[in-house]
Each structure stands twice: as C-alpha cells, then as structure tokens.
C-alpha cells in the first residue's frame, strides 16, 4: 500500500474494505470481491511461511475444524466442503493441522518447496489405536 502524505488519505482512523459501493457482499465469494488496497485481503503473506499445510481429501470428513480455527481465513470451504488452502494468506502457522481430527490427518505441514504430488504419495497411513492413546496423553 502506498504511503501517502498527511493530506493524501481520507480523514479519521478509518479504512475502506472496498473501493466504491458494493452490493450483496454476503453472497459474493471472497475471490470475487473487489477488495481495496487498504484491505488486508490484497496483501500476500505467502513469504512468511517456512512450512506449508497440504491437504489430502481422501481422509477429510469435512468437519470444518480447520476452517473454524484458521486465524487468517485461509481454508477455502464451499458448501461445507473443504476444497483447499488460500496460499496468499496462509502464514504456515499449522493450527489447521493441529485441530484436524482424522486418522491419519487430512492436513499436514511440509517444507515450503515440497510439491503436492509427492506429498500425497508419502502421506502416512492410519496409526494404530494404542499410538492414538499415547498421543492423547501428551
């Protein structure tokens, strides 16, 4: 965002989410909304990540935990179905992986440079129950 001089912005401690008027915002998908430069939606934090979450839909039960817990609204869900991750706004915090309840997890952290295809090939198998208990005791 351009750093304007003291006379180069609107008054008040106020920022506009959109340039100009907008209608039916609740029924417009985020990627279709004309967010303004002052909206954090237009800023990418992709380069903040060391690790990234990858998604394996074979194990996903669409519980929406990851969508609920993501602090940056970077879980893309449509009609209550998890469809992927918004890598422009994901900081790689790993909370989605932490809260994923499936066995094995449907979201796992990988190095930033890891390609999705090989990650899916290497995805861990279901862990036995006693292992689960051990995890539960941590």
């Amino acid at each position, binding site marked *: 965002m351009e750093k304007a001089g003291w006379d180069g912005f609107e008054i008040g401690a106020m920022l506009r989410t*959109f340039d100009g008027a907008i209608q039916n915002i609740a029924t417009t998908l985020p990627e279709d909304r004309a967010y303004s430069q002052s909206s954090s939606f237009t800023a990418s934090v992709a380069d903040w990540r060391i690790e990234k979450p990858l998604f394996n839909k074979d194990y996903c039960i669409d519980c929406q935990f990851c969508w609920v817990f993501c602090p940056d609204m970077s879980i893309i869900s449509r009609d209550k179905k998890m469809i992927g991750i918004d890598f422009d706004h994901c900081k790689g915090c790993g909370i989605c992986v932490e809260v994923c309840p499936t066995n094995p997890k449907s979201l796992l952290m990988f190095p930033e440079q890891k390609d999705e295809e090989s990650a899916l090939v290497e995805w861990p198998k279901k862990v036995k129950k006693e292992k689960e208990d051990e995890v539960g005791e941590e």
Partner: protein
Amino acid sequence: MADTMELRDIEVWDGNMAAAQALRQVQVDVVAAYPITPSTPIVEGYATYKANGYVDGEFVMVESEHAAMSGCIGAAAAGGRVATATSSQGFALMVETLYSASGMRLPIILNVVNRAIGAPLNVNGDHSDMYMGRDSGWIQLDAYNPQHAYDLNFIAFKVAEDHDVRLPAMVHQDGFMTSHTAQGVHTLTDEAAYGFVGEFQPMNDMLDLDHPVTHGVQTEEDWHFEHKARQQHALMTAVIPKIEAAFAEFEKLSGRKYNLVETHQMEDAEMAVICMGTSVETAMEVVDELRAQGIKAGVVGIRVFRPWPLEQLAEVLKNVKAIGTLDRSSPHGTVGMLYNEIAGTLFNCDTKAVLNNYIYGLGGRDLTKAHVVGIFNDLKANVDAGKLTTPLQQYIGLRGPKLSFF
C-alpha cells in the same frame, strides 16, 4: 416523529436546562451517559424528553463515563447525531476515549459542566476538568451564562458535523454558577433550532452497508504522524472559519452575536483581565464601574478555547500595557494556563505589556467584584511602573497568609 414543544420567548432556565433543551431541539439520536453532578440534569432532561415523546432517539445507560464516551463513539461511527454530558472525575475517566473520538473524527458533542477535580472531593465549579481536556483534540467552546450554554450547543453541532471539520466539540459551562443558576434565556422555536443545525449528514458511517469501513484502525510509526497532522490541520485551519460562519448565521437567526474572543471596553483599554466562564461577565460589570471613575480597564473573555484564537487575541491585546490572566484551576507546578497561553501568544508581537497571573475560585470559591477591583489595582500599578510590581503568580480569595510564586 417527535412532538414539538411550545416555548416562551424567554424561559427562566438554568444552564443545565438550557443545554438539555438544545439537545432535544437538534433531535440527538443517541445519548450514552453516566450522570455526575453538576451535569446530571442535562442527560436526565434528554431522557425525560425522550420518554415523553419530544425526541426520537436512544438513551443508553452505561456503567461509567469511560463507557459513556465509548458508547458515543460507537454510535457516532455508526452514523448518528450523538451527545452526552459530564463533569470533573467523570470527565477524567472519559479522557482516554476523548482522544479516540477526535482521532476518529467523530462529531460528538460533550457538555462539560466544569467542576473541581478531587481530592478533596468537591462538587462545585472550577475549570480543572476543562483544562484537562485541552490537548484532547476537541473543539472547546465556553459559555458564561445559561443563554450561552443554550446557543453554543447549536454552534457546536453545526461546526462539528460539518464534513470539512468532523471533530468533536465540548460546550463548557461553570458548575452551579451557570448550570444551577436560572436566568432568562431567549429561546429558538423547535423548527428554527433544528433548521439552523440541519439534518445530520453521515460520513463513513458503519451502517452504510454498501460502503463497508473499518473504524479505529491501528497505525504505528509508518502512519500515526500523518494522521495526527491531518487532525491538527483540520483543527487549525477548518474550524475557526466554520465557527465564524456559524456565529454570523446564528446572529442573523437570533440577534445574538458571539466572537472567537469576547471583548468589553477594549478599544482604548490600558489594562485588561483575561478569564473564562462566569468570571468574564462579573469582570465586565466591574469594568463598567471602573470606567465610570475614568479608569481605562477592559475585559477579554475566551469564547473558543480550542482551537486557540492566537491571532485574534494578539490583535485585541496589542495596545494594553498590563494584563492579568485569571486561572480557575490549580496550575500544579507552573504558571496558570492562561498566563502561559497569553505569554506565548504575545511573545513574537511588539506588545510590551506587563503580564501577571491570578489563581482564583478553586472548588467554587466565590470571585467577588471586590477581588476583580483588587486585580485592576495591581494592573494599574504595573501600568504606571512599566514593570511587574507584584509577584508573577498570586492566589486571591484564599484564607491564610498571602500566597504567591515567582
């Protein structure tokens, strides 16, 4: 639609009633309030008018003055005409949020019924709370009697809500000496009063769902300075012309003339006192009596306290030879505020007036006409000597040994 109220041309109202009626007449949308003596009857009055159908609005009861101003900020950001009232310790508790209101450029009107700040606890009038607000970024207007408390509310709404201004404004009146003193108040009809201020024009309101905005954003080193500069620019350049225009329009409507700086017998005055609130009028009466004795005394009253009318004050004071600044607030470690401001105002001028300072009237202590005569006696001695003949800062109306500093 609210009922109109038939008022007599002159109503005998105290300052609180006058302010409450003004809030009704401009049809304030939201009052969030935590009542405190001596300002209580203002918000109580608004609540009564609302309950009886004389105003369409909301009265929000909150748990503190901090919450009261926070509620006002929320309502103003949402896009309503908003006002409240407070005094003293309540004002002190509001201070944090006052800076938010001005920084967010929200045109809230705060009626401050000036009262001492404890300890010791005291409900009576002095200017401690008014002085506390002077760096908060608000416009500050000062009433000397109930008529002014009524009129200045209309001025405050009109100026504050102007889209070139969008700054909150305080209307000050002296606790008890104005707020609880009934005098004749020339009224405006409901229609004329509302017409003068006009319908509220929202700006960047949160309830405009087609234009979503975020209010109260965070800035750090990268933006804060520019925001504060912009705020100061509006306060310094936009407000004075708008106040002058509002004063002129109000004079056309009511016949009552207000000035940024009020003067009395200043044309040929060789000495002047400068003060605020009810003291201005008491001093005017003293000056009339001194004039009858051939003494060239004058009075300067601060009407617009913030923004400070520096140029106008320098102009009215350019020919006087002695000036007494009267501060009704304990200066706590320095000279009084008016001494400082006037010294700063005159420093780069050719004026060579002798300047001194009086601390008076704390906690509601009476300022008598005899006190004011005594001050002019000091000033006359300073005029004749061409230098200070008294200590720089003197306490007047105080029991015990004479107290002075510098």
